[in-house]
């Protein structure tokens, strides 16, 4: 059973992904497919709301690594919000906070897309 799900919302030109459950080498392909189709649809301003995310392994972080360059070179970004401490700790151990916009909440991310 796949204990992971993604829901997509739109706020103006920004796409918000609500991810929940456990993101590991088994479930990472689901996130990868969604990010791929957003890029195909030319949606480059992406917020990933992690409020429902209970767990992440490096395979999950690898998905964010694989697409960030493409999205940024096309004038967009992938911003991450609402992480719990355990999930944030994994991003932090691998040095993500210096290279990714990891924000407290969705509103902050939407504002930073406006600027």
């Amino acid at each position, binding site marked *: 059973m796949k204990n992971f799900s993604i829901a997509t919302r739109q706020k103006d030109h920004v796409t918000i992904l609500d991810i929940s459950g456990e993101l590991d*080498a*088994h479930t990472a392909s689901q996130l990868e497919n969604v990010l791929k189709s957003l890029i195909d649809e030319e949606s480059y301003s992406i917020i990933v709301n992690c409020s429902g995310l209970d*767990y992440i392994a490096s395979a999950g*972080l690898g998905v964010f*690594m694989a697409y960030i*360059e493409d999205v940024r070179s096309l004038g967009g970004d992938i911003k991450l919000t609402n992480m719990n401490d355990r999930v944030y700790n994994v991003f932090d*151990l691998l*040095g*993500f906070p210096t*290279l990714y916009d990891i924000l407290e909440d969705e509103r902050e991310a939407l504002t930073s897309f406006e600027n």
Partner: protein
Amino acid sequence: MAGSKQIQTLSVEASTKHLAEVRDFVAAHAENIGLSQKDISEIRLAVDEAYTNIIKHAYKNSPKEKVNIEIGSDSDQLWISLVDKGKSFDPSTYSEPDLMKRIKEKKRGGMGVYLIRKLMDQVQYNRRGQTNEIRMVKNI
């Protein structure tokens, strides 16, 4: 049960579909011996990364192969051992991941070994005949 030695084993096919089961197996042991939520989270992630590396690199995603997992603890330490019969991993060829460089080169692997070393107190790789073992220890 402080002071007594407890050991549990699990044999699973090398497939990412068993990842949650493997994480839960080690977490249950860690919970039983009363470790903190932080330690339990770290042990779950370390075993996930070690098992994922075996699936992807030792067995190259061949799900018929088996991985034998043992978790044990005494009053000082918790140890987890994962044994496979696939391609061996040479830790001397491993270097710390440079995140910026990996993003530029669109490489996404190689972070698991680094995480395991950060999360556990000791990590050993042993090769005996055709068998590989990664043994990870957490001081408790």
